[in-house]
């Protein structure tokens, strides 16, 4: 059942109710990705980056200059979480945004990066910074079979394959003793950079990670902005909008689909490596479907193929539960309302703004 909105409107609604501009509107409906050149309230990307960087450094190091702690370590912890999820959302964006294939298994790549780093650091004493690309390459390799299946099946069926992929990896993690089984691997050493331990940078030890994640997110945003306007980006758009036409035009769709999966896995793996370094342990909870669903909803609620959407969506979904938690005590609820509200948010957002807050209306 093809969901061809224009055609079905004609068939079922009768001639009188055809929107007047349906034939001349093609440009707007199938426009190429706008490219997020307008970031915050119309400012350019560069200005946003500098502004955000200053803001971040202020948050990080303010406490070194004031006699009393102004910014709680908890807030910084949440910010690190936001940024790690932003990296994940940006990574997933390649598959669920650019080429338009919903994936419910990306926590698997997050997990491969995390376990990869943990195992390499623990059993072979590899330097953390080296484990990042190594684990990412493993993740990219793991993405190949998944990408291959994306070539064979589409839509709902691909969703279940990705889900199954994530779950199977989780079972492997739980059942393998050398991966720590269900308790995971604790006690991963804190990495050092230029001879200084990451946990010694800044007043709470989290600043190093904040800066690292911020730089990665900024780099990704820049890189993705570039891709959107490049030949690859246009190929992605073509595949997403109308795959058959893309093939007819000679675009090597198989290559681009695999590319999207591989890049996406690489990025998510980096997030996993950082997560392990930050929390000093890895556990199978990183691989759960709840995690995959969370990342997907960040992309969708934020807006598919929107870089801004991915980052802000990640931020929203990370901060909201924490606020709700504080609220819960204030109201006196006996249970944590986050997941209940989360479900409702998804339903409401899909009703009111299906393309996500920062998505393009053609995606609705």
């Amino acid at each position, binding site marked *: 059942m093809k969901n061809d909105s224009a055609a079905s409107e004609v068939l079922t609604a009768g001639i009188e109710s055809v929107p007047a501009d349906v034939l001349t509107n093609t440009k707007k409906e199938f426009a190429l990705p706008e490219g997020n050149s307008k970031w915050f309230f119309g400012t350019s990307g560069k200005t946003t980056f500098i502004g955000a960087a200053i803001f971040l450094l202020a948050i990080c190091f303010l406490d070194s200059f004031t006699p009393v702690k102004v910014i709680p370590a908890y807030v910084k912890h949440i910010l690190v979480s936001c940024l790690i999820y932003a990296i994940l959302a940006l990574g997933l964006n390649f598959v669920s945004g650019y080429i338009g294939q919903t994936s419910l298994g990306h926590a698997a790549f997050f997990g491969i990066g995390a376990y990869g780093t943990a195992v390499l650091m623990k059993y072979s004493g590899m330097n953390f910074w080296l484990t990042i690309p190594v684990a990412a390459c493993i993740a990219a390799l793991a993405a190949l079979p998944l990408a291959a299946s994306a070539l064979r099946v589409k839509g709902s069926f691909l969703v279940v394959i990705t889900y199954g992929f994530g779950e199977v990896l989780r079972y492997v993690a739980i059942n393998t003793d050398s991966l720590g089984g269900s308790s995971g691997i604790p006690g991963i050493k804190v990495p050092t950079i230029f001879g200084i331990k990451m946990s010694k940078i800044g007043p709470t030890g989290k600043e190093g990670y904040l800066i690292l994640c911020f730089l990665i997110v900024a780099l990704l945003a820049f890189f993705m902005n570039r891709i959107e306007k490049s030949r690859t980006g246009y190929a992605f758009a073509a595949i997403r909008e109308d795959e058959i036409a893309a093939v007819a035009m000679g675009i090597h769709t198989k290559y681009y689909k695999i590319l999207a999966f591989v890049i996406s896995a690489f990025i998510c793996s980096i997030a996993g490596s950082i997560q392990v370094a930050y929390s000093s342990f890895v556990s199978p909870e990183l691989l759960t479907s709840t995690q995959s669903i969370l990342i997907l*909803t960040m992309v969708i609620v934020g807006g598919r193929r929107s870089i801004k959407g991915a980052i802000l969506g990640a931020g929203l979904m990370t901060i909201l539960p924490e606020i709700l938690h504080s609220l819960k005590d204030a109201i006196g609820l006996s249970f944590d309302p986050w997941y209940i509200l989360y479900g409702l948010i998804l339903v409401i957002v899909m009703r009111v703004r299906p393309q996500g807050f920062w998505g393009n209306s053609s995606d609705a």
Partner: protein
Amino acid sequence: MDFVQQVINGLAQGGIYSLIAIGWTTVFGIVGVMNWTHGEVYMLGAFAGYFLCIMGMPFVPALLLSMLIGSGIAMAIDEFGYKPLRKKGKMAVAGFITALGLSTFLRYGANAVFTPNPRAYPDVIDYQLIPILTVGGKTLTISSIHLTILAGTMLIMVLLELFIRRTITGKAMLAASQDMQTLGLMGANSEVLIKVTFAISGALGAAAGVFVGTIYAINPMMGALAGLKGWAVAILGGIGSITGSLIGGLILGVAENLTAGFISTGYKDAIGFIIMIAVLLIKPTGLLGFKFDEKV
């Protein structure tokens, strides 16, 4: 002998998976949406049956009433979740995310209302271990409860097949699964058909929940894994085919028991996913299903 016993156990358990799978397959086939809330309807049906049995209702009326409640919940989910999106023609991704959202809402809502404690049904079915065959000192057995459930499942499926093949509504559903739009042009009321589909799916899901409740225990999280396994079975059997779901369920039950018995108990639940992935890659239409084209 152990091998055969594991197979028998598997066949017995498979019946439940089949019931859940039918709920998935009918909705996906006819409405075209992956009804991620099916696991929660199953869970709510189980809880409904629990409270009815606790209040003293005998088993069969409790089962029937739970099925009715399940139908109602499924229809409500369609009315408030999917229908508004259908009207706007935005079913694909938005429909799926809505399903995820509703599923999360129901699951954690149930957790808050019912508390995470597992509960056991009061003893409602008489239990016996029925010997089948004795070979060389070892006896093959099957439990009477499993047998009852297998029989119940088959009965439901026969009734369903009759409904689909003999009644007008049923035939309309079959036609709808092939081409909803043309059916609309032919004068059938697609909205009513969709509601009927959800009603059937909800009733069967709830029935499965009640059966599981009588044998095992219930808790608010039970819909998660069961729902997914049901989907795996639906895919294995072939989307749109009820007989396929039956066969698929039995196969999964046997595969799980054999995996747990001879390979590793830790991977028992994983085998369902592995089978599902294998089927999708080798023959996406499953054992007995027919072709679908869906973009999410």
